[in-house]
């Protein structure tokens, strides 16, 4: 595709439910990143993939958060037993190696 795409664009869930967020990177980009942005805050790094492996997952805030990437392309970020503090915009970006990162439109997650 022409750019990074993410789905869903908005997700409202109840506290304690699991959610899955999807990212389709720019075709051919080997690196993929997940960030989150809470209201009025800057972007907070979560995890980085190079191909299908994640050499840096140090930003995941707890073991309720996990991510995988298959086929060097699509990535899924899963949040288990969601809490209200998980409410944020989750942004995915991709890049060729370590050059500029291009962002998707994000998923706005609201945990009630």
């Amino acid at each position, binding site marked *: 595709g022409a750019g990074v795409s993410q789905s869903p664009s908005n997700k409202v869930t109840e506290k304690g439910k699991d959610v899955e967020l999807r990212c389709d990177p720019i075709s051919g980009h080997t690196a993929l990143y997940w960030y989150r942005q809470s209201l009025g805050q800057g972007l907070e790094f979560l995890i980085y993939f190079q191909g299908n492996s994640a050499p840096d997952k140090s930003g995941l805030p707890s073991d309720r958060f996990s991510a995988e990437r298959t086929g060097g392309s699509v990535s899924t970020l899963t949040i288990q037993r969601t809490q209200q503090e998980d409410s944020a915009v989750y942004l995915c970006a991709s890049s060729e190696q*370590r050059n500029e990162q291009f962002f998707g439109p994000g998923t706005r997650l609201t945990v009630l």
Partner: protein
Amino acid sequence: EDKVVQSPLSLVVHEGDTVTLNCSYEVTNFRSLLWYKQEKKAPTFLFMLTSSGIEKKSGRLSSILDKKELFSILNITATQTGDSAIYLCAVGATSGSRLTFGEGTQLTVNP
């Protein structure tokens, strides 16, 4: 711990004004500094700077990096209402591929 500080946090100007946004950083093994514009959700890429003293320019926007003093500025001349957005500064290190972002500058351009 890598750190990026932007100033001012918010700025209100009138159309036609020139603005300068500031970004200072502390990062181990600096590789690059990037500027993004965020209007709704997706930050859109503006500039990537890796060398000191070389100005990057795109239309009314320009940016320069000072690696000795560890800061960058983003200039916008003849501002328009469409420039209203959050401007994010981020740094990348050679030791990893994550970007560390500042809190952003909220720019409002009034007609």
